[in-house]
């Protein structure tokens, strides 16, 4: 089970990806913004999947990836290579992008539109071409509260340890673990309910 996305351009011999990410981000920060392209190639697919699991919408997820990389560029001065790895910093920014999105979405009614469709048939999730189980699972994921969904997505799909999740979400390890446990239980309950409704 690899947690790494597609590899970017070659890195200097003897340098692992974490060191390499950090040194590239430091160069972006220190006047070489064009090198952000290397980090985009390495990490944008995993961010796309993070946002996809959070929003359930491909088009929105692409927007949010773009937004996340724009924030990385805009906030590059706040990156400190000596305070942890680039990926953790990137997830913290991505998470703030997702939080802002959900705050806005209530205003711009994309959710309402999706709900309207739910009454008459499949939702915008149709675009995910999966079998019935996957569709029900994705729908169940969308019905979790955002705080439970994000901890589950980080743990299950991004293979983050609870110490890392706690750092990304700025909470205690115990809180992250408890929230993940509740998320798993809720997900199962929602899934079974949707399955029964479908049957």
């Amino acid at each position: 089970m690899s947690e790494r996305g597609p590899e970017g351009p070659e890195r200097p011999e003897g340098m692992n990806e974490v060191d390499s990410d950090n040194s590239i981000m430091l160069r972006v920060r220190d006047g070489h913004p064009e090198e952000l392209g290397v980090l985009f190639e390495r990490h944008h697919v995993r961010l796309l999947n993070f946002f996809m699991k959070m929003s359930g919408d491909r088009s929105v997820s692409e927007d949010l990836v773009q937004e996340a990389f724009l924030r990385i560029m805009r906030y590059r001065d706040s990156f400190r290579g000596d305070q942890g790895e680039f990926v953790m910093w990137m997830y913290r920014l991505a998470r703030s992008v997702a939080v802002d999105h959900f705050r806005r979405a209530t205003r711009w009614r994309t959710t309402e539109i999706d709900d309207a469709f739910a009454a008459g048939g499949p939702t915008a999730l149709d675009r995910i071409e999966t079998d019935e189980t996957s569709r029900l699972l994705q729908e169940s994921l969308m019905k979790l509260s955002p705080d439970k969904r994000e901890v589950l997505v980080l743990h299950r799909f991004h293979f983050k340890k609870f110490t890392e999740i706690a750092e990304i979400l700025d909470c205690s390890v115990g809180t992250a673990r408890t929230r993940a446990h509740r998320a798993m239980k809720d997900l199962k309950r929602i899934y079974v309910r949707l399955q029964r409704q479908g049957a």
Partner: protein
Amino acid sequence: MMSCESVRESLLEFLGEPIDRLPADLRAHLDGCAGCTGELEELRGTWLALGQLPEEQSSDRMRARFHAMLTAETASVRRDAPASMTRRNPGTLLSFFTLRPVLQAAALAAALIIGVFLGTAIGARQGKQDGIAELRDEMRSMTHAVTLSLLQHQSASERLRGVGLTETTPPDAELIQTLLRVVNDDPSANVRLAALDVLASLPARSDVRAGLIASLPHQASPPVTAAMAAVLLELDGSEAAEAVRHAATDDKLPDSVRQYLLKILAEKSGKTKGSGT
């Protein structure tokens, strides 16, 4: 001795591992606790099922958008570099300010409001109403400039804010055309929906109705098509209903959207008949 509650939460760390890889104290607890063993099976089932969800892949469009943003940002950094000579100090108020276009816009608006206020005060004293009107015009045109600038921004969030600002601007023909361009061309469905919301608040304008009728067949996002059809039917007119009816026959749209369009057409038709009797 571990409690059942702490065991159940700890199990989450090991759902992807075979049972013999679990720490000895967890295994010892599971050996003597049917409840926690059942919980482990349940959690593991959910964990494995989640693994069936598909992985999204990148697209050329994503890369193109990113590189357009990177080119613009790099050019901006290069442009700013000679002025500052050195890297910005992240702790300064100036760097905080320059990172945020909305703060710049807010500062500009605040400066103009103060200007208008001072102008009003001075004008009242000096009786120079012409000067106040001039300041008001200037403020309007500056707000307009800020709005247009935000709508060109690389960030969808900033463009959403730009659309939000248009709600405070008197709707002239240029603004309508700008919003219609957003509805037609913006890469973000959310921004297009936001612009549509603003246009929907201007039902009396024939250019809004004509622009949306022209835009409907070209929308790529089903939620935007659905929202636009609903707006058009609200704006009324047989031409709008015809455009929606035509969209409902588009086989590129998901069935759910086509059904939705037919449903709102039927509702509209029912209302029209009801009001006619």
